[in-house]
């Protein structure tokens, strides 16, 4: 009994270290070391992901929302997560992990800016979503066609330029015409959009930043 308790405690300890190292952005090499230790101790991959890495990434997001972390920290946290996922990639492929949900994502037609979209993508992938990134300058018909093909939970539309925000309404109208508007949540992001604009064009939510966007996706797929 004592041995079992001690094993559980050791397991929790290593997962806490993973979460703590990522959440506190301590450093990448420590994170890799703890993940290797966890793998050696045969900690289930799902535990490493959920109770270690995602817990840590959630902490990065929480601190960003609280104004303790900023873009630099968000990017560093996401890049630490990416590195960790590369270490876990062979085991992940073998286990075929169930995804939290699917997101089709892109910057709307006429706009080729992608920094915000890419940060959202990193965080959403880290949180367990499968992403179909259509890139930049995406035509409304490509959004709609992919939404029909992939049947995603969320369609993420990004725009930096105020001049391209009308494209978002075109996409939403086309989803309606295709008869799938009710099947997919539409999430808007980017510097050009506001909550008021989102309401006006019938979006489900407007993400003011990447972390908030991922929170919406989690809520919708719970």
């Amino acid at each position, binding site marked *: 009994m004592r041995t079992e308790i001690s094993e559980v405690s050791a397991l929790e300890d290593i997962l806490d270290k993973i979460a703590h190292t990522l959440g506190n952005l301590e450093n990448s090499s420590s994170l890799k070391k703890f993940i290797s230790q966890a793998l050696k101790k045969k900690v289930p991959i799902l535990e490493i992901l959920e109770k270690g890495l995602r817990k840590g990434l959630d902490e990065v997001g929480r601190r960003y929302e609280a*104004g303790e972390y900023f873009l630099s920290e968000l990017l*560093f946290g996401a890049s630490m997560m990416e590195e960790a996922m590369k270490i876990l990639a062979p085991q992940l492929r073998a286990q075929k992990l169930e995804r939290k949900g699917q997101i089709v994502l892109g910057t709307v037609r006429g706009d080729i800016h992608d920094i915000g979209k890419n940060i959202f993508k990193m965080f959403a992938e880290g949180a367990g979503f499968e992403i179909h990134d259509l890139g930049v300058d995406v035509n409304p018909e490509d959004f709609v066609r992919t939404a029909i093909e992939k049947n995603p939970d969320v369609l993420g539309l990004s725009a930096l330029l105020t001049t391209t925000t009308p494209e978002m309404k075109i996409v939403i109208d086309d989803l309606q015409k295709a008869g799938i508007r009710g099947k997919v949540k539409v999430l808007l992001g980017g510097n050009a959009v506001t909550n008021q604009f989102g309401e006006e064009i019938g979006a489900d939510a407007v993400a003011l930043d990447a972390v908030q966007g991922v929170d919406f996706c989690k809520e919708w797929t719970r």
Partner: protein
Amino acid sequence: MKEIEGMTPRERIRNAMDFKEVDLVPWAESFYVETLIKLFSEGLPAHKMAVIEWEMLGNGNFLVNWPKLLGFDPYSYFGCMSLADCTVPVDIGPIPRFKQRKILENAKYQEYIMETGARSRRIKKGGKEVSWYSMPLFYEFPVKDKKSWEQYKVRLNPEDPRRYPKDWEKDGYLHIFDEYQDGPTMLGITGFYGFGAELMGIPNFNLAFYRDPELIEDMISHWEYFTIESIREAVETFKDRVDYVFWWEDMAEKHGPNISPKLYKTFLLSHYKRVAGFLNKNKIYRIMMDSDGNTQPILDLVVEAGITGHWPLEVNSGMDVRTLRKRYGKKLFLVGNLDKREIAKGGEAMQKEIDSKLPFMKETGGYVAGLDHLVHVEFTLEKFREYADYLKGKLVIQ
């Protein structure tokens, strides 16, 4: 701007930035080229705005005086000022420049190498016309690591004589500035975040603070040395003939600054202080930071760094002149902050936005009125005229 007896536009803006008495609140704007072209299509009279100078043909190849179209001046037409009316002639770009050229064209895009060495993509509208005016996508940057930085650094030599005009001569330039310049004289420099983000791209530069702090330290240190030594001759010549310094940064987004106060303090603060100290030593105290986004979490440090003014104060990012004035008093003169989205609506929305801020700012001083960024393309000529007329009627100090 219409002159009131006894006060030139230059005196007016200097006094406003110094929290001294003004006859009317200065009004300054900047226009996107795309906006001007749209306004022309709506009836803006080009012939009243064209700036034509008679010069010797072919830059002196022929002994013939010939008219040359230099551009358009919407500022005098609408009655506002340009913040960059007269600039101190120092070239702080890479020398030699990268030759801007097209490297790829397909059905949707054109791709270019820019003068900074970045590669950019411009979108074609309707598969034909290239949009030259909207911000292109910069997809590859010249500095990626220590090696590429060392290569780039060679182009940032402050001693290069090409940094000053061919006809640079101290007394001659002082004479020209004094004799022919009514508006403010601006010295433009680039900040420690802005230059790094421009050379590495925002994600890579931001990550380097964590992944490669030695590279960041070297870049920032060189930029301090390069900035001070590049502008030294101009600053020591003009001294307080420079009315203000425009310190470009663009270091924030809607959520907050791109880098944390901790990183700002660790990597940037001391370098800012030394550049600001050099300016102050030469009697230049009006130092304005240009940054979009919500800069509030780092503003205490920005003020500590020696910045004394801030533009454009984007409302969409939660910036508000009234809050900033209450928080910083006379430590920061403020420029802009009229919500471009509300102003572009015209009518009551426009009037409400002006009336909610201008009386307070007139009372507390230290304010230059204007939109909270460049005049964007959604403005119609009619709405901009309406805004200009309404604002101008409110600027006079009773």
